[in-house]
């Protein structure tokens, strides 16, 4: 438990992706089975305990601490697990004792409601602060150490470097059939065992991704070799269904990283009435029209959904590709063949919840350029607002995991841009920890007294070059008018300040932002040293984009 606690502790402060992978890999390498597998389960969110809930923790601390001191402390710390871990009074003479993670996981899963508090108190008495914190995090179910399931699997794959060279995608492939403590997975990656057989009738297949195309790429490409379709602005999903050896039907919806999101979209389950694996875009379609991304957002990141939400935001899949059709794995077939099988399947399904992503006909790159510029006139019609560009796929492309260069290209719409004024800057992390690299910017609007004021409309922390970062950083240091911890407010007057050209993908109404709008995917496109802040854009311009 101590080693696992130390890992969580260190990860919670580490911002860098590679450093996180290294910390996890270091832990997996030096920790025996089954401990490391249970840690992997905790990191990937595969553990949950019926009787161990936050309420138990509150009761235990209430029996041991002065309520006034607890409230003052909780108020200061702001996190229940951490407050309890820090102020837990170790009884006189309690021997330090750190149980194994496996003992804890076994206990949390098997102790009854009545006996659990006593065992939990014993563990807390024996552990140190970090150990207590990690234990309580296991119970409250939120690790919040910034490690996605994908990152943890990447760390597992890295154990095979120089041995089996198992890739993260291959780990992803076998993952759905595995259970904690994943001993066969570690054995395989480390070259001590065979590739685990998946017994899951509805496994996730690693997704194929596209490279962004550049103007210069087109000259080498013959339009006759390619097919094009719209790039829809939803979330990429994989719908998989199959029948288990016991005859039970299994239906799954996965995100493009392989997270199982079936529970959030029960309305899709019935429509996935086929055996196979379909690649598509999850959208909200109402009255035959695709809704913008911010409507779909209402349904994301939810464990459960209400009947009302299902009725108000009906889910829909617009199909791109077919990976498996019945018993046939089509991934080794060319795109054109898979597309024909997909068209036949969608016709057979005949459900309003699944339709085909239409092909965009073109014979020259000029023709495709025109279609991309005006999707409404090129077949997208009323759904043009949900088109974020075109996908260009070789007709003979096989379905390959990852992001191979050449077979598939994405050609996004030109982003919107706005000239905004830098208002606040915050220091970055890791390599950027001495640089002010997170920028809050605003546009002009009419203030309470009729005067022009800046209202923040977004935050961006990339898009600039290293050289530009140095320039902005120097400006921030020179132009600071206020400091709030790691944040600095910089001068932003009509005639003094820095104008940033910000590119973004779209806008949505938001009640959480003072400006009333939220920007999608904002990044710094250019520094406009030449432009006085007074000439930056106005909120009205952005509101017009909302339509």
């Amino acid at each position, binding site marked *: 438990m101590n080693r696992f606690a130390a890992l969580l502790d260190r990860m919670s402060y580490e*911002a860098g992706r590679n450093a996180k992978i290294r910390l996890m890999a270091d832990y997996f390498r030096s920790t025996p089975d089954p401990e490391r597998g249970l840690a992997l389960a905790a990191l990937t969110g595969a553990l949950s305990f019926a009787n161990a809930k936050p309420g138990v923790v509150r009761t235990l601390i209430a029996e041991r601490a*002065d309520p006034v001191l607890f409230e*003052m402390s909780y108020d*200061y710390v702001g996190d229940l697990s951490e407050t309890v871990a*820090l*102020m837990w009074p170790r009884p006189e003479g309690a021997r330090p004792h750190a149980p194994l993670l496996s003992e804890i996981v076994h206990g949390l899963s098997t102790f009854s409601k009545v006996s659990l508090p006593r065992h939990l108190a014993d563990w807390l008495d024996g552990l140190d602060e970090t150990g207590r914190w990690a234990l309580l995090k296991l119970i409250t179910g939120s690790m919040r150490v910034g490690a996605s399931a994908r990152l943890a699997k990447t760390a597992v794959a890295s154990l095979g470097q120089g041995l089996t060279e198992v890739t993260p995608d291959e780990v992803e492939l076998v993952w759905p059939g595995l259970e904690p403590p994943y001993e066969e997975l570690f054995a395989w990656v480390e070259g001590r065992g065979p590739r685990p057989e998946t017994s899951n009738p509805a496994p996730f297949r690693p997704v194929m991704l596209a490279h962004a195309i550049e103007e210069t790429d087109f000259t080498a490409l013959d339009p006759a070799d390619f097919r094009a379709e719209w790039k829809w602005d939803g979330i990429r999903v994989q719908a998989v269904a199959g029948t288990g050896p016991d005859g039970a039907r299994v239906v799954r919806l996965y995100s493009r990283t392989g997270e199982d999101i079936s529970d959030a979209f029960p309305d899709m389950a019935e429509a996935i009435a086929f055996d196979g694996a379909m690649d598509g875009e999850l959208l909200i379609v109402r009255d035959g029209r695709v809704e913008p991304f911010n409507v779909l957002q209402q349904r994301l990141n939810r464990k459960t959904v209400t009947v009302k939400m299902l009725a108000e935001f009906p889910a829909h899949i617009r199909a791109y590709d077919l990976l498996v059709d019945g018993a046939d794995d089509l991934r080794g077939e060319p795109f054109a063949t898979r597309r024909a099988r997909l068209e036949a399947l969608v016709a057979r399904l005949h459900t309003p919840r699944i339709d085909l992503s239409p092909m965009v006909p073109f014979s020259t790159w000029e023709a495709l350029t025109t279609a991309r510029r005006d999707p409404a006139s090129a077949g997208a019609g009323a759904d043009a607002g949900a088109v974020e560009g075109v996908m260009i796929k070789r007709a003979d492309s096989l379905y390959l995991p990852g992001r191979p260069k050449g077979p598939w290209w994405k050609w996004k719409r030109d982003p919107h841009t706005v000239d905004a004024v830098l208002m606040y800057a915050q220091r970055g992390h*890791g390599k950027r*920890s*001495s640089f002010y690299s997170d920028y809050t910017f605003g546009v002009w609007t009419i203030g309470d007294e009729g005067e022009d004021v800046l209202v923040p409309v977004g935050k961006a922390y990339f898009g600039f070059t290293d050289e530009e970062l140095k320039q902005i950083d120097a400006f921030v240091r020179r132009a600071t008018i206020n400091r709030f911890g*790691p944040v600095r407010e910089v001068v932003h007057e009509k005639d003094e300040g820095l104008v940033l050209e910000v590119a973004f993908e779209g806008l949505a109404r938001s009640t959480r932002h003072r400006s009333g709008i939220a920007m999608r995917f904002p990044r710094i496109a250019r520094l406009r040293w030449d432009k006085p802040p007074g000439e930056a854009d106005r909120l009205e311009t952005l509101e017009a984009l909302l339509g």
Partner: protein
Amino acid sequence: MRPEDLLCPSPKGLYSPAGDFYVDPTRAVPRAVITHGHSDHARAGHAHVLATRETLDIMALRMGPGFAGATQALAYGAEIILNGVKVSLHPAGHVLGSAQVRLEKDGLVIVVSGDYKDAADPTCAPFEPIRCHVFVSEATFGLPVFRHPPAAGEVDKLLASVRIFPERTHIVGAYSLGKAQRMMALIRRAGHDAPIYVHGALTNITDYYESCGMDFGEILPVKGAPKSAFAGAIVIAPPSSMTDLWARRFADPITCFASGWMRVRARARQRGVELPLVVSDHADWDGLCASIRATGCEELWVTHGAEDALVHWAHTRQLRARPLHMVGYGEEDEEAVVVAPEGEAPPP
């Protein structure tokens, strides 16, 4: 004699009406007794200053030799009479030279702790509980979530990280007086004998500690060292410099911070700290409670920090207690702000 006649809060700091002197005054006064050299307690401009020899030396190093009209050194345990008040200084265990001030008149004893800690520290004399009627305590870490682990374990964490990331520089933020030297001593005790690099703002005080007989091994200035020297090295710097232009010379550094505040994750994250080291110059919650009890005091006055929690605790122990709401203390965090950046022109 009422306690208020021997000592009371005033706008300039704690004042002894009977003895006509101040303890750690926040503004210039005719006569001051100074507990230790940190800038929120030791200020320049007093006509007469009484303190330990070390504290006087440190004040001279930090503020220049003319920091006071006249100075008088008093050794730990020695007594002096000021206008009929018997005054003596006793180790506070906070930094080198730090002292508690004991005041006695007509059988009434008040002890002003200054900043103190009861944890072991190889760079200063250990805290001595002094029996008294009224104990005046700080409460910097006066919440039961502040329980500082043994400092040696925190240094082990640092050295373990140096092993996992041998190509990166570990920059350890530590206040220039006391914390920095304690970290040096602890790192050496843990067996790490590679050179430790220091920011220019630390050299003076570190040299002074060494002149008092402490051995920190090879301490080298960052300035002038080749960039290649910093791979895998430990660098100690004042907290503010870690986010300064100064820190850019290090490739892919790991930001560490040695402070009692690091006990709380949110505090560490706000500062962008990647490796928090819970090493404190102040007593933690258990230390405060134990030290207060050890004085056998009948009344507790709390100067600064989380006064309310400590006063509440005292009441639950049937101990009379009140907060003094002193302002101007506990700004050690800001201490480093006055440090001039090294190797960088001062801002216009």
